[in-house]
Structures are given as C-alpha cells and as structure tokens.
C-alpha cells in the first residue's frame, strides 16, 4: 500500500521514521559438518509503521511476537531480510560500514537489563566519553566533563557517579546511566526495549517519569517496546500491538484501550492484572487457550485464527488480513482483522476454542470446533 505513496514521504516533514514491509527471518540450520538451512524463523514478517517527530510509539506484544527484533532491525543491530527503514529520509536498511556507524548517532537504544548492557570494566565516565569520541563530539577533558556532569544531572544522578563502576549502583540508577549513555550523542530517536521490566515496581515509575521529562525537555522521539500494556499506555501516544511477527492493531493509545478492535488486543487487555480488587472481580476475562504457535511455521491466513474466540469459517484461515481503517473508527485506528466491525457490533459472538498443543506445529488447521457461524456459542450473555 504505502510503497506507492512516495509523495507522503516528501511532504510529511514531521515523519521521522517510516518502516515499510520490514521482514527479519532467521535461518534455522542443522547438520554438524555442513550446515544447511532447514527453515526460517519469521521473527518479523511484513511490518509497516510510521513514527512522527516528538511522539512516542509503543509496541506491545508477548514474548516471541518479534517486537524486540523489530526494534533491533530498525536500529540495524540485526540485518533485515527485506523491506525498508526510512530514518529522516535515509534508508537505514541498506546502509553499511562507516555511513551506518555515523548514522547511529541519531538513533539510540535503552536496554532491558541495565547491568548486562553496561561494560562492567568501564567507569561511567569512560562509558559516556566513548560515545562522544565515537562521533567526534569530544571537546577535550574539561568541556567533556562539564557536559557529562550536566547529563548526569539530567538523569538524576550526582556527578560523583561518573567515577564509579556499574556494579556499584542499584538497578534504577543503572538504568539512568543507560539512558544517559543513549542521550550523550544527542539522538533524535530512542528505542527503549523493555526499559522498566527488569526494575523493582517502586523504581519503575521513577524511570518512566524520567523518560517523559526528557522527552519534553529535549524533544525526543521514542519507540517504546514492552510487554506491559499499562506501561505502554502510560507513555505512548500511539500503540501498535504485535502478534507473531506482524502488527495486528494500531491506534492512538486512548482509542486502543477504550475501543480495542482486534480479538487479540481484547484478550490481551482483559488479561492484564489491575491493582484494584473491584475491577478484578467485575471484569470480563477473555482467556485465550493454548500457546503461541511457532514463528517458524506460522498459521496460514490470519496468524491469530488458531486461538481466536471469534474465528469465522469464511476466510480467517486462508487470507491474511491487512491493516485497514475499519468503519466507524478514527482515521488513525487500523486493525488487521476481517471481522473487526462485526465483532465490535456484537454481530459475531465468542465461542470456545479447544486448546491446541504447540510443540511441533503441523501447519494445518486448528482443532477448533468444526466450522460455521452456527457453532458460535453465546458465552457470558
């Protein structure tokens, strides 16, 4: 779709990142002496998304949905199999060598595990100076030190922290150092991969607040990747929900949570535990059965049809739905489901799904109730 709309790329000056039909397939090899490729894990399989300057795009999904791989492919930390990643007009997916390295100044990453992502043998100062040096931003000892002190202050650490080593800090402080490292080269985009999930609950809020304050002050653009929907909703302007390598729904954060259209989004939202007993007691749960199918042999048609409680017989298992704006939804709300409107309007109701054991995916149809809308049961009504 978007490939023909080159005009928008030129006119839309607000656009910072445009990912088009990106795919990352990892080969599965076997054999001891001579490795041969016996298949591919389709970690990311045809993802398109746009991120505007100054906004926060949230990417949610469960483990194995490819969200981290997508983030790393955008940063060119893994090589995309196909598709393009336009960053401020430059296709990062085809960059190599020195031009790519210099480009890295403009997009940075914050990691999930702040301890393992900081070299244990480098002091904080040397970790940060390294970034300055790598991009020729170093202006000599005194100026650098002043800059780093300022940076430390921005992330809420004392300048004494510069002389210390990563293992001497607590988890939250380490994450602040990780953020400072990303900031030291003055990037436009920061990809934060599960920035708070390794931290204690009471510390998570500190880091989330820090991220939003930095965004306000520095005009940063964020791509936040997380499995925690509440965290993503809190920080994001727009949210994309991923399932098995593809985005199944994309909407402004408020719309997505108030009016989820994709069955998977609905299930995900209903599964998030809320720290409020009243809500917990009253809410209607959509429990998914079974496990995530293997991304090496994704189901045909709609990837979610094997677990979907609203699955229909007509084309769910044959035709892969594309992201589209459904009738009656906002212009920015896109969903990849054939029956989104019917489900929203209650014309299709939920039915039981027999759990399917997932170990070696057969690739064939599911063990769900045979077929036909007649089998849809009236549950919870």
């Amino acid at each position, binding site marked *: 779709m978007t490939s023909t709309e080159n005009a928008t790329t030129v006119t839309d000056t607000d656009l910072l990142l445009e990912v088009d039909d990106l795919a990352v397939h990892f080969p599965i090899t076997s054999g001891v002496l001579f490795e041969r490729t016996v298949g591919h894990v389709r970690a990311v399989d045809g993802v398109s998304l746009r991120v505007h300057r100054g906004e926060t795009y949230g990417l949610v999904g*469960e*483990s194995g949905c490819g969200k981290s791989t997508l983030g790393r492919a955008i940063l060119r930390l893994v090589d995309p199999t196909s598709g393009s990643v336009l960053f401020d007009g430059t296709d990062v997916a085809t960059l190599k060598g020195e031009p790519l390295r210099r480009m890295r100044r403009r997009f940075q990453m914050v990691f999930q595990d702040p301890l393992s992502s900081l070299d244990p043998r480098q002091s904080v100062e040397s970790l940060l100076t390294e970034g300055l040096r790598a991009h020729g931003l170093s202006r000599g000892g005194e100026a650098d030190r002043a800059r780093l002190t300022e940076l430390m202050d921005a992330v809420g650490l004392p300048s004494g922290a510069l002389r210390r080593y990563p293992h001497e800090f*607590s*988890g*939250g*402080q380490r994450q602040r150092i990780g953020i400072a490292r990303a900031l030291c080269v003055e990037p436009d985009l920061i990809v934060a991969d599960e920035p708070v999930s390794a931290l*204690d*609950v*009471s*510390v*998570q*809020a*500190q880091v*989330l*607040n820090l991220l*939003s304050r930095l965004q306000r002050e520095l005009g940063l653009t964020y791509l936040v990747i997380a*499995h*925690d*929907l*509440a*965290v993503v*909703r*809190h*920080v994001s302007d727009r949210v994309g929900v991923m399932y098995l390598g593809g985005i199944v729904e994309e909407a402004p*954060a408020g719309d997505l*949570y108030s009016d989820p259209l994709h069955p998977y989004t609905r*299930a*995900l*939202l*209903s*599964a*998030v*535990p*809320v*720290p*409020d*007993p*009243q*809500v*917990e*007691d009253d809410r209607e*749960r959509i*429990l*998914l*059965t*079974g*496990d*995530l199918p293997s991304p090496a042999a994704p189901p045909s048609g709609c990837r979610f049809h094997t677990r979907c409680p609203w699955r229909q017989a007509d084309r769910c298992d044959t035709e892969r739905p594309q992201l589209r704006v459904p009738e009656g939804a906002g212009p920015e709300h896109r969903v990849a489901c054939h029956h989104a409107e019917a489900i929203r309007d209650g014309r299709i109701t939920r039915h039981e799904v*027999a*759990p*399917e*054991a*997932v*170990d070696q995916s057969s690739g064939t149809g599911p063990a769900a109730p045979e077929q036909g809308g007649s089998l849809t049961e009236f549950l919870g009504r």
Partner: protein
Amino acid sequence: MTPAGARSGDGPLLDVRDLSVRFTRRGEPDTVAVDGISFDIEPGEVVGLVGESGCGKSVTSLAIMGLLPGRGPKVGGEVRFGGDDLLALSDSALRERRGRDLGMVFQDPLSSLNPVVPVGVQITEALTRHRGMDKKAARTEAITLLERVGIPDPARRVTSYPHQMSGGMRQRALIAIALACRPRLLIADEPTTALDVTIQAQILELLRELVAETGTALMMITHDLGVVAGLCDRVNVLYAGRIVERAERHRLFATPRHPYTHGLIGSIPRLDSDPELELPAIPGSVNDNLPWDTACAFAPRCPREIGRCTEVTPGVETAASRLLRCHNPVPATSA
C-alpha cells in the same frame, strides 16, 4: 470468596510466628533476610505475600518448606502446621510432610522439573510414594490431573519431557505435581512472573478454580499487586524483611495506610489512569534502608517521614483486622 465449609474452626492451617532468617558470611556482617515475620493462613484461604526484591518473601517460603540451604542461614521462630512445628521436624519427617500436605510451585518451571524424566512419571512418583497408589492407578490419576490443569491431550502428554512443553504448559504440569497429593497448602512463589500476560491469566484462573474446588489453601508470593488484587483474600505487604501492612484485599487497595503500600499502589501505571499525570514515584531504591532495630527501614524513601521514624522502630498496631507498622500512617480517609 472463601469456599463453603473450608473454615473448620480449628484455628489456622499455617501459623508462622516470629520467623527470622539470618545469613552469615565469614568476615562480613550478617544479612537478615526475614526479620520476625508472623502471619497465618486459614484452611482454604488465599494469602498473599507482596514485596519487591530483597523483601524476604521468597526466603520466607523456602524457610517454611525447609528448603533453605543446610549451612549458612540461621532460622528462628515457629512455623506451626497442623499441630507440628515444621522447623523442629527431622529432615525425613519434613520431606514426608512436603510431599503430602504442602505443595510448592516455583517461578521457573523448567528448572524445577526434572529434565530427563517424563512429566507423567514425575507425577506418578509422587502418587505412589505419598498416596500409596499402584502404578496403573497412579497413571490414570496422573492423566486426570493433567487434564484438570488444562493440558490438552493429557494421555499423550504424560510421556512428554519438560523441554517438549511450552512455558505455560510446564507451569501447569508443575501445578499438577504440586496438587498430586491433595495438599492442604499450596505455596506459589511468583508462579506467573516468567509467563506472558495471556498465559498468566490462564494460570491465575486455574489457581482460582483449584482453590475453590479442592479447598486447598494458597500462599501466593508475588511482586505484582495486580495479581494479588484479583486472587488473594488477605494480603501481607513486606518491606526489608518485615510485614509493614496486612489487610483484607478490598480494604488494602481501597485505603492503603502504610506509606509504602500507598506509594506502591500509586506508582503503578494503570490501564484506566490518566496518562497525562506524572506517576507518583517512590524515590530511591530498595537498597536505601535503615536498620529495623533503630528505625523504620522505609524512612529514607518515605514522603511521610517524621523525626521519630529515623530514631524509633515503629511498633505493630492491629486495629479492625488491619496490621500496620508505621509512626505516621496515611489517614484512612484519603485513598
């Protein structure tokens, strides 16, 4: 909430009194992981232990089960279970109780299942040893159990090895093993932390059903207040090795009195909260503690700190079935 007939009126099923665990290391000061914890669990009740890393919740469960490493930790206090002090039992007697009366589910199902033994065999072993079943009956029962915990195609799954199962299925298998001997108490230590949200919802639903159905009591150890809110009857909030607040869950979440509980509940982003507002974060980290002997451990991070907090250990006050350890609690009216 509580299943009918579960409360037999003979007093609590598990009564932990003044439990303390102290780790000693040569040449270094002792670490007090659990510092005089007391709580009880009624038959059929679901009790939560909530806290962040280092609050002593996991050490508490290991101490109750007698699973702490033999050398090193010094365990004090009493753990009364069905009339016996578990801490005073011999190793073999405790092992017997562990198999029969106490079941345990851990965070990481892969490392707590034996990787070279089929799941079914691990269940039948427990059945033949503790319930005296013969091989054949045990196998049938194992299949029933696997079916009960929602494992598809249980007759085939009996022969599966742990690595052939997904994370959610392994956790189900582990629950099946823990339930095999119809324990009166199930201890679940972060049973859903390693799982995805949708799988977590399945497992929590399963635990909820099992408690209602079998009348087993459940001790739920977690860092996730959301999990606690939907599952537990009573909640103990731990900080730095002590219980700082205990209340029935609706009351705890509606009117948290301890500043830590209050701050913790407030600092969690919620699906239904306003994202424009900045999260009220608790400053500092769990390492910024004062020693309980001379102060309130939470004082350095506490927004309601008053002079006394850094000088006097707050005592335990129990009022209207709420336990509180604070000099300057949040007023009951502000929620």
